[in-house]
């Protein structure tokens, strides 16, 4: 890259993206506070998950970790050559990087109008996703993939004009 492009690149890096609006911060505050006080219902977005999926979410990382360990052991144990001093570089932590994350929406159903506790009309949507996150260790090419089904129920207030 020539000098001028490098200068332009540096100039662009000095520009700071505009901050999100106060309204967005307030919405995040409400929604994240809502998730901390489990059981309270957010007026804007309500999300529910079935217990079975939570179990799956808990079980999958464990299974992935076991698979990973088995893969590691297999990789390092296969070349059983004569008893030379085996120098496994176990001391260096493996560098797993997330290389892909997908949230695939495979079903969206509009369940029609509902009325919230405060009398506000709202539209309820049921969205079904499959979240997949993949990590890869570029040194060993070992990879771990974590796939979890997820259901969101959104209650969006409706404004009539």
């Amino acid at each position: 890259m020539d000098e001028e492009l490098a200068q332009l690149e540096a100039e662009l890096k000095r520009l700071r993206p505009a901050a999100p609006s106060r309204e967005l911060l307030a919405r995040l505050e409400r929604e994240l506070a809502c998730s901390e006080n489990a059981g309270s219902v957010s007026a804007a977005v309500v999300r529910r998950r079935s217990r079975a999926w939570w179990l799956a979410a808990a079980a999958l990382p464990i299974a992935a970790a076991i698979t990973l360990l088995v893969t590691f052991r297999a990789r390092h144990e296969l070349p059983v050559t004569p008893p030379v001093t085996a120098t496994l570089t176990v001391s260096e932590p493996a560098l797993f990087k997330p290389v892909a994350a997908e949230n695939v929406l495979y079903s969206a159903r509009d369940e029609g109008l509902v009325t919230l506790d405060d009398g506000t009309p709202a539209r309820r949507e049921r969205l079904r996703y499959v979240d997949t996150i993949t990590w890869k260790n570029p040194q060993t090419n070992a990879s771990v993939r974590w796939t979890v089904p997820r259901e969101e129920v959104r209650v969006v207030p409706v404004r009539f004009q």
Partner: protein
Amino acid sequence: MALFRQNRTHSAPMEESRNHDAWQNWFQLYGPKLLLCARQWTRTLADAEDVVQDAFVRFWRHQRELPGDPMALLVTSVRRAAFDRARRDQRRTAREERAFGGEDTVASVFEPSLDGDDRREAIEAALLRLPAEQREVLVLKIWGELTFEEIALQLDLPPNTAASRYRYALAALRKQLIAADCHG
């Protein structure tokens, strides 16, 4: 889980944020970058903020404890949320479209700069004129702080294509800025 630990230049503040759950600190640092990325894939500023909200809440609730670079995860999540939103919007009625605002708000994408607002506005205008595929690579590289490999994964491109789009974008930007300078 120590196996998963990795060192990234911007992971230290993340670790601090994770420790005391201060999402505000994290969002103050990275929220503007995410919003700028979101604006590449949404029609309006309001849509971009909704998309960032969705992605960030999902990240904070379910993904913040995951190992690795969270910015790459969040950018993916923002992009996916933007596409999901676009699909849902197609099903909206025209009345709802009007109620929620269909026209993009004319708002600057950058904070006022020390180099002067004229220069910033010229850069913003030049960015808008770039082809979308070049602009998104430029934004992800400069302000999303992703590597070409990460951009390639996000956009499903070969890394070399991402790198060349970045160079074309810079060259086109420079050309437009020179033209703007000439015309005062």
